[in-house]
């Protein structure tokens, strides 16, 4: 094979090529005036804005505010989801009491509650955190519940035959068996929490990523808007990496992950 052929062959398999080409087109469009800055800022402008915002401390300080909302909301939502999932998964009476309520809750889109939450909690931090908490309960609940119910009965039988108490069966067999499902639920909850954050922060925020975007919109600073979009994307990636890190540790016994 000749040299040019080799290069062509390599390029035909390079997955980074099309995104880079798009960036270059975008940059060229901006420089030539084809894409006005008030429509969309050039990639180079976005990059320099990003550097400025990081150096001035504007981005980190607002990120901390948004991160705090996610963490508190998630902590409440995931804890509630775990508690309700355990109650419903481990006992018939619990299921009868909890599951119908959760199914009703499922039919209400979390974001549709925004007006009601504003009436209840005002426009401070509480409605934002409450929305995230409310939205992240269900994925954790449902996956933990079905994970517990899906645990192999034969393994529970084996544990019972060795005289393990109900509590020991739950601790050694049922909970570890439901853990993979719980982590799936956690992954859903993390991505939902970011989605809800975006909307919740549009509610009269005075700090946070949503505040930055709203401000930038008023001044038509498309470069800042794009920077914030990038941050949202990075948050999503980080959330996914976090769950995968948890899985690598907690599910090391699974054949696909056994080295």
């Amino acid at each position: 094979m000749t040299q040019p052929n080799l290069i062509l062959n390599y390029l035909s398999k390079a997955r980074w090529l099309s995104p880079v080409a798009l960036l270059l087109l975008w940059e060229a469009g901006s420089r030539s005036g084809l894409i006005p800055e008030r429509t969309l800022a050039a990639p180079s402008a976005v990059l320099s804005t990003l550097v400025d915002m990081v150096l001035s401390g504007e981005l980190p300080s607002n990120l901390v505010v948004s991160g705090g909302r996610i963490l508190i909301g998630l902590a409440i939502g995931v804890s509630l989801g775990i508690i309700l999932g355990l109650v419903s998964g481990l006992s018939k009476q619990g299921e009868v009491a909890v599951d119908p309520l959760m199914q009703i809750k499922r039919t209400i889109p979390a974001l549709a509650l925004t007006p009601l939450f504003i009436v209840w909690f005002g426009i401070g931090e509480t409605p934002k955190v409450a929305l995230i908490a409310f939205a992240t309960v269900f994925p954790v609940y449902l996956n933990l519940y079905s994970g517990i119910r899906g645990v192999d009965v034969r393994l529970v039988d084996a544990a019972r035959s060795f005289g393990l108490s109900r509590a020991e069966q739950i601790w050694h067999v049922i909970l570890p068996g439901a853990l993979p499902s719980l982590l799936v639920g956690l992954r859903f909850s993390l991505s939902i929490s970011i989605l809800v954050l975006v909307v919740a922060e549009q509610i009269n925020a005075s700090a946070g990523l949503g505040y930055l975007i709203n401000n930038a919109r008023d001044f038509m600073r498309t470069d800042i808007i794009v920077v914030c979009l990038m941050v949202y994307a990075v948050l999503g990636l980080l959330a996914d990496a976090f769950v995968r890190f948890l899985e690598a540790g907690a599910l090391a016994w699974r054949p696909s992950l056994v080295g």
Partner: protein
Amino acid sequence: MNAILSTLQTGFTRQFLRYEDQRASSSTANTTGGLVRLRGFTRRFGDNAIIEGLDLDIAPGEFVSLLGRSGSGKTTLLRTLAGLDSAEGQDVTIPQTRAVVFQDARLLPWKRVWRNVALGLRGSDVRQRAEAALREVGLDHRLDAWPLTLSGGESQRVALARALVREPQLLLMDEPFAALDALTRFRVHELVLRLWSVHRPSVMLVTHDVDEAIKLSDRVLVLDKGRIVAEERITAPRGEREILTVELREALLSKLGTGRIEDDADIAAVFDDKPNIPF
């Protein structure tokens, strides 16, 4: 047939070979009273009687095999002896300490091998006891392995160690060798006999392999439709049973059924309206 068998059996001079020499005399063990005692035991699911009016005694240290076809009630009986199904209101005596080896080893995949063996044990020397048990089955080099990385034979040996580490009075085995290849099965047979001769639990082995039952046990029971339809005591030393096998095998197999379709009403019904299917 039974007459022929008994003359055959008494024809053997009782020799203490291999496994026999480590055993307390089984005849004295048999007179010390039943470790397991069932009288008129019945289990139904709805109108369907799985087991009906079953009497069973197992002496301490006795190795009993239970033969039966699928659906004969073997597993139901084993679950009762294991205490997994409640036998409330029935005349059933089972010992305090029991352990089960299942056909599928049923190791917890999220616990390392030694933790599976130590499951539910209490005390400070749990790790040492688990190690000792695994050494007995020749797996002390796999202490920290994940169960899903074990072969079928290794998994069954871990299950065996997990059962024996509890020093059970009654060891129940539910077709534990069925999924193993012939060579591995043979080795695990030897291992089971050696462990039995050392620890001396009563053993109830559920199997559908007649040769396996004859090779391993003191007594073979045949269960059919929830009743014990045949019982054979084998006194010939293990290792000298090849001659017995032919005759006894015939006798036990005839009790199990011929393997013809007509013997199974459900399957026979399928062929009722198409009697002449050429195979």
